[in-house]
């Protein structure tokens, strides 16, 4: 029996190999001069709601401007963007343009065949980039070349329930501006029987944008300017400790982000500190339940707030020259004034060119005031910090799972948790 089954397997293996060889040699696409088709892997495309329709609007407008370029969009679940892009790359068919979240960008830059956008753009590069908010552009720059441009960007903001503010004897027109004022307001709201405040630190997508915002605002940060890991520095630890004390003092419910969002929309939670990305969803779910307002991310102590952005950048993985050119056309349109304006009005992400804010968007913002506090804070926005090397995303997840969540939600000791996690991350990424 043993010999038979082995004998059966051998021709099988041979057959599989033969087939694969045949398939490889058969896949040489014929080039049609003049027109080109590129793939665009996007976690917004095809989704239900404004992000999906907004992305479609962007692509429709691009098709009008560039009839010679066909964009084949691929809808990717937001949790699997990197999985999908890396698998496609391994299979030899990387998407031409990828919408890649910032918490995964550094790893993407290390491990995907990203193309230098400044080289693809050529002479027009400086003029194109000059008007874009510089922080997130810097995050996409390595060794003097820019590989990623900011696309759908959001920053943390404070959503609050104006009705609960009034019930608690607070003035909804004077929302808290510092973490101390957040505490005071939360204490008053808890007095009414509702929950006080919730910082969405333990992000289910395992991004650390809010962790970074808190650490930065408290005068620390996950990394310093020289790339040294400082998430266990006294200032960083103090920032996290302040958020923890909200929980231990009963001002912040120790629940998951989804649970807190649910409680906020039913009017059971006074303040929710979270990315502006979810504004539309929260607005829909809170519709008619209470008056929803927003205010800027709070400062810690006397220093101004320093919120870190989250969201996604665009990178190009094209290897073929014609497709590289077409990919740049798409990226440059999406990051143009018109692109950012559509992104802001149709999807609700931030307009990343000051010229857009001052120009055509001004009227729209008057009707949609929830984004205004954030846009006013845009010049305080910090670039997203990534741990170095190909294991950067793993390090971020370690920080979130092993330190932030247990400290903020379950009362683990901030100093010892952050120190031991920082040491594990140092070993993992090989940085000081």
């Amino acid at each position: 029996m043993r010999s038979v089954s082995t004998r059966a397997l051998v021709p099988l293996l041979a057959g599989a190999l033969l087939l694969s060889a045949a398939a490889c040699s058969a896949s040489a696409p014929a080039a049609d001069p003049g027109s080109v088709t590129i793939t665009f892997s996007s976690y917004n495309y095809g989704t239900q709601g404004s992000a999906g329709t907004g992305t479609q609007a962007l692509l429709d407008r691009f098709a009008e401007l560039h009839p010679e370029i066909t964009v084949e969009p691929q809808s990717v679940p937001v949790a699997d963007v990197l999985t999908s892009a890396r698998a496609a790359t391994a299979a030899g068919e990387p998407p031409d343009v990828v919408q890649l979240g910032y918490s995964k960008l550094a790893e993407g830059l290390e491990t995907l065949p990203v193309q230098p956008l400044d080289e693809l753009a050529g002479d027009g590069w400086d003029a194109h980039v000059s008007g874009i908010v510089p922080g997130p552009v810097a995050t996409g720059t390595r060794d003097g070349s820019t590989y990623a441009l900011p696309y759908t960007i959001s920053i943390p903001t404070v959503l609050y329930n104006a009705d609960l503010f009034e019930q608690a004897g607070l003035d909804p027109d004077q929302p808290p501006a510092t973490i101390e004022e957040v505490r005071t307001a939360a204490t008053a709201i808890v007095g009414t029987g509702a929950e006080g405040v919730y910082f969405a630190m333990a992000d289910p997508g395992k991004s650390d944008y809010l962790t970074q915002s808190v650490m930065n605002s408290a005068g620390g940060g996950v990394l310093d300017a020289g790339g040294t890991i400082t998430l266990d520095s006294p200032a960083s630890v103090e920032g996290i400790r302040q958020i923890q004390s909200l929980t231990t003092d009963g001002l912040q419910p120790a629940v998951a982000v989804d649970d807190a969002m649910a409680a906020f929309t039913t009017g059971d939670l006074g303040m929710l500190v979270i990315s502006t990305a979810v504004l539309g969803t929260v607005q829909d779910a809170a519709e008619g339940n209470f008056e929803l307002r927003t205010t800027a991310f709070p400062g810690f102590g006397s220093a101004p707030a320093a919120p870190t952005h989250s969201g996604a950048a665009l990178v190009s993985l094209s290897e073929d020259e014609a497709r590289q050119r077409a990919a740049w056309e798409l990226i440059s349109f999406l990051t143009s004034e018109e692109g950012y304006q559509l992104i802001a009005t149709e999807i609700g992400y931030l307009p990343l060119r000051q010229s857009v804010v001052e120009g055509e968007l001004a009227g729209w913002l008057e009707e949609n005031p929830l984004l205004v506090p954030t846009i006013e804070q845009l010049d305080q926005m910090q670039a997203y910090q990534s741990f170095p090397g190909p294991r950067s995303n793993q390090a971020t997840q370690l920080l979130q799972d092993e330190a932030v969540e247990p400290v903020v939600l379950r009362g683990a000791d901030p100093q010892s948790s952050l120190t031991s996690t920082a040491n594990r991350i140092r070993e993992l990424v090989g940085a000081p």
Partner: protein
Amino acid sequence: MAGRELLPDGAGRARVGGLLWHLALCGAVVSLLFAVVWALLSSFRPTSRIYGLTPSWPTLEHYTRVLAEWPVATLVGNTFVMASAVAVGQVVIGCLAAFALVHLTPRARRPVLALLTVSLAIPPQALIIPQYLMATRLGWLNTEAGLIVPQLGSSALAVLVLVQHVRAMPVSAAQAARLEGALPREVLWYVVLPALRPAIAAVAVLVFITTWNEYLWPLLITPRTEDTTVQIGLSQFVTAEGTDYGGLLAASTLTSLPILLVYLVAARRITDAFMQAGAR
């Protein structure tokens, strides 16, 4: 159902027993279906009432939105083709193999079953990388072959269950057929398969549903949106901008209807055999 009970009971005891029987099954239904019913009820709640317990009038807003904006037909079509092909494939492979292992090559049974059991224990999450690289080298990206053929490899469960049923079958008729000089395929077709119908139906339903719910494989092998399956489509409600729970639940409800259909067809096979046996 009077007179049909197989278990002996006097008239009075039967009523008590019947009450207990209903109580036990109702209890099971309530506890096992609670979350499903909650999902169904929530799919009729308006977005502003989707969380929490505040009562609200039912609405069809999520269903109309999903039907208008979500490619239900394409996704269900793709998934139906994939799941039924894999179910049929695994059942055919399983019946042939089970018949062979019990009646034709019994000495191969233990080693082959051992190989299959071990193959169940292998974490599929790790095999997917080599499987994906093989399938893409075959040019199967965005193809039905790519969706279907590699999933036939997971036939172990089907074979194990079918082997067990073939072994449990009374062999009289098979032997009679053999004495009359029937060929193996005639024994399989006229004797074994008819008796195996309930098991085949059960296995087909299980494989169909398991394949229908597969997530990682279709995600990787069909990046093109119009080729992909229901589970990937459902993830379009879980976005970076928050989750559209109403849409997700409505879409889940709609896309379980084809499974209900498959189950009802198959269940008839299972219970028919059952009724015949009972009436005998």
